[in-house]
């Protein structure tokens, strides 16, 4: 378990969290590469089925940031 690196799927709002993720980049803040970001215009559009599909696709966790 020690090496376990969870695959995290992030559903993010384009205005805030996506921008923040870009900012993290411009400051070269490092985080594990197992994080994947999917951009939504607004996380209000995140459907339950999106989250379930993410788990089905292999995600260990889903993060919704908006």
């Amino acid at each position, binding site marked *: 378990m020690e090496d376990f690196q969870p695959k995290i799927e992030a559903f993010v709002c384009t205005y805030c969290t996506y*921008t923040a*993720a870009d900012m*993290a980049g411009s400051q*070269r803040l490092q985080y594990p590469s197992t994080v994947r970001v999917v951009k939504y*215009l607004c996380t*209000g*559009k995140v459907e339950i089925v999106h989250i379930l*599909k993410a788990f089905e696709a292999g995600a260990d966790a889903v993060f919704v940031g908006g």
Partner: protein
Amino acid sequence: METKGNLGTGNKIGAIAVIGGGISGIQASLDAANSGFKVFLIESNTSIGGVMAQLDKTFPTNDCSTCMISPKLIEVAKHPNIEIISYADVLDISGPPGNFSVKIKKKARYVDENKCVGCGICASKCPKKVPDAFNRGLGKRKAIYVSFPQAVPLIYTIDKENCIYFKNGRCRACEKFCENNAIDFAQQDEIIEIGAGTIILAPGFETFDASIRGEYGYGRYPNVITSIEYERILSAGGPSQGHIQRPSDSQVPKRIAWIQCVGSRDASMGRGYCSYVCCMYAIKQAVISKEHDREIDTCIFYIDIRAQGKGFDRYFERARSESGVRFVRSMISRVVENPISHNLEINYIDESGEIRTEEFDMVILSVGLSPNQAFQDLARKLEVELNQFGFCESRGLELVSTSRPGFFVCGVFQSPKDIPETVLQGSSAAAEAMGFLADVRGTMVAEEVYPEERDVRGEEPRIGVFVCHCGINIAGVVDVKAVSEFAKTLSHVVFADNYLFACSTDTQEEMKKIIKEHKLNRVVVASCSPRTHEPLFQDTLREAGLNKYLFEMANIRDQNSWVHANEKENATEKAKDLVRMSVARAALLEPLHEVPFNVVQKGLVVGGGLAGLTAALTLAEQGYETYLIERSADLGGNARTLYYTEEGARPSEYLKDLVQKVKDNRFIRVYTNAEVIDCSGHVGRFTSTISVNGKKEEISYGVAIVATGGEEYKPKEYLYGENNKVLTQRELEERLASCDEGLKNIKDLVMIQCVGSRDDEHPYCSRVCCTEAVKNALKLKELNPKVNIYVLYRDIRTFGFKEFYYKKARENGVRFIRYEADKKPQVREVDGILQIVVYDPNLRSDIELKADILTLSAAIRPHSDSKSLATVFKLPCDQDGFFLEAHLKLRPLDFTNAGFFLCGLAHGPKFADESVAQAKGAASRACTILSKAQMYVGGAVAQVDGSRCVACLTCVRTCPYNVPRLDEEEGVIYIDTAACQGCGNCATACPRGAVVVAHNTDEQFLAKITALY
């Protein structure tokens, strides 16, 4: 010499030169460029953004400053009608208004602007580190640099003073590593000349040199810093990545003190004005510090808290009661340092009169604002009148007008102010600059012409994938070649390759060619971020004859190579995943068409007071027909009884003139005794029924400006209405203006401030009352020098240059006595005489006053009619009943509802000159719509499938923009494509799945998500 623009024709030029690329210059540029004018934005620094780009969070919303400004920067950067001339100084401006010739020195960057793509390899290889001016010397940058990562233009500059090659003749590392050959050591300063019809001055400000006030030890004690330095420390992009550290030992300070008014309200140093923003930014900094670490003790030492802006007083109260920021009303005399610990000691007397000594780990000096010093000489050369401090003199009530015709001013260069006022003045100056050039609107702007779009419907997806190296930004971590090879294996991909810079001009040409050659009908670019580059690539698609919605981007830089620099292999794998996801979605993309409609190029202004009249006249001067609706029988509103200002302007006379101009203007149709009954349509095309003298009429318009005004609170306290010697400030002004003989004989007059303001029910400041009191007191002293005047106040809020008049009033013998919120003055009538007892907290004693007249500074309330108008237009109001703008900082004139704008007292308490400026600004914003003959609606918006809709109204409740409406005839929901923002909340909420958001369909999302790993 290079010459640009339409020089020497003798006619007016449809271009505007904006000098200064801070937020005011940016706003002015965007408004003008969006209204049909060519804009030259001239900035002396290497990039635009000004001081706002250096700030961390902003009050009162705690929004990130960089996050707010960077979209504006990008908008400027990609605007076809704005030409940024950065790292350039204006040398001279000659010629008549309408046809100025601007001589500019473009300073040598030693980097070719056309070749540099901002990849930053040069800086990473440059061996020379120097103190970073953008971080106020707190961090280091290289000798070749950009100010900050989001800089616009993103072009590197060699700092010649520090460059090793320029000093020793050896190095040239940057040149060696630049893959685009952009370094040019032979570059020279260049003189260019541009033609512009009008000039907007927005050179901004700098902060006070705190070492001049030597008692605070700035420059001697490492842990005494200025507020602007602290902004950089707080900023995530700053020298300590947003971790609060003190300079001496990089430890987290546990006790921080702020000292207010350093270089402000300091007549003894020739700086007798208030800098407006320091109280609020100090409070904000304290609150943010507390958010970083609750354990940090924060203490603000102040004279008066100046929270006169919208939402400020609430913020101040929250800081005190919820965040636990300490406020001590005591001006600090000096800071002493323990040279071993570098801790700082402050002596002060607290509110109970006790002498205290307190130790702090860091002291922040809230430094005042000074006008841009480098601009002073030029301003004199240009014969633009400056005041004694070097700020630009305005013309009476017209804040954005200067002494030189054709020159306008905005931002802090006009007077110290906050961001919203700066932004609205930017719009206001644009309105003036455009008004003068209304007849040449559209003569210098370039309209892009695109080839006809290829119809791809029914075609199998043919996807092209373009993978970007971004110099070494991506390629240094990710194996881009492997990624493009991988892309080739994905279904529907018919082309994939990798490019040094996908965004460079030559690659763009290449891309167009490939799209045509390979008959691509979908394009995926794997590079930086859609936030900055999507519009650019979409434009390329359009130029290649593809619909712009057939584009998809994979973010393999900002969210991959930059954040996984230490995991090269994983980053490559992730890049492949991201490309796979994008390709999966791309295959499902559909072309979308925005539908054009003809804009009704007419404006509606609701409210015929000073703001409404100004807005209507400004629109008319720009050449747009305007309806002006006034509910009462006469135009003029509150300003009719504003007889004079502290500065000697005469609003009521100005108003008379204005009313006449409005009545005489053939473009303005005035309706009095009129109100708006309903409203339908969308931005660019509204229809309303109005009732005029009881008769109904229908009007159409493209934009609406709300200027419904405010009214004076009728006090219920302090014997008002019971004793005829108790007047409101406006009633006193009326009597002063009519030179009431009775006033000449009175001996004692007392004024009470904050009547109906800043209390539990109305926790806002009415902004104008302190100045009104000062103004009326001075007038009374003029009339009757022997009269004794006592002003009972809580905080005197004579911001900006109004502080002079406060001082003048004191010098003329007006006595200002402070009272505390929980110990309000007691007013009694004793034997026919008014007796006021007030507790002076400094003396810790009661003071007993008698008054022949008691004047109450009554609050400003929103007009009682504004509620019904809010319902008609579906516009939001704030807790106090004033209309709520789209964003307190950067969109002070807009509503979230597109096509609606606001100004005047309807927005919040303000001065007459501020109302005028705001009205012009609102008109300027409106022009960005009215200047377009056609607008487009649709695209990525929600569509309702009427056959599935059961009209349950869930979407109506869910939509944050109030767009869905029930179509009563059809019994289904109707979503106006023009008003929809495309957020998709309705689609998610709809229990029947009746709403689909184009370009954001479930299938598209699911395709992407399924391709995750």
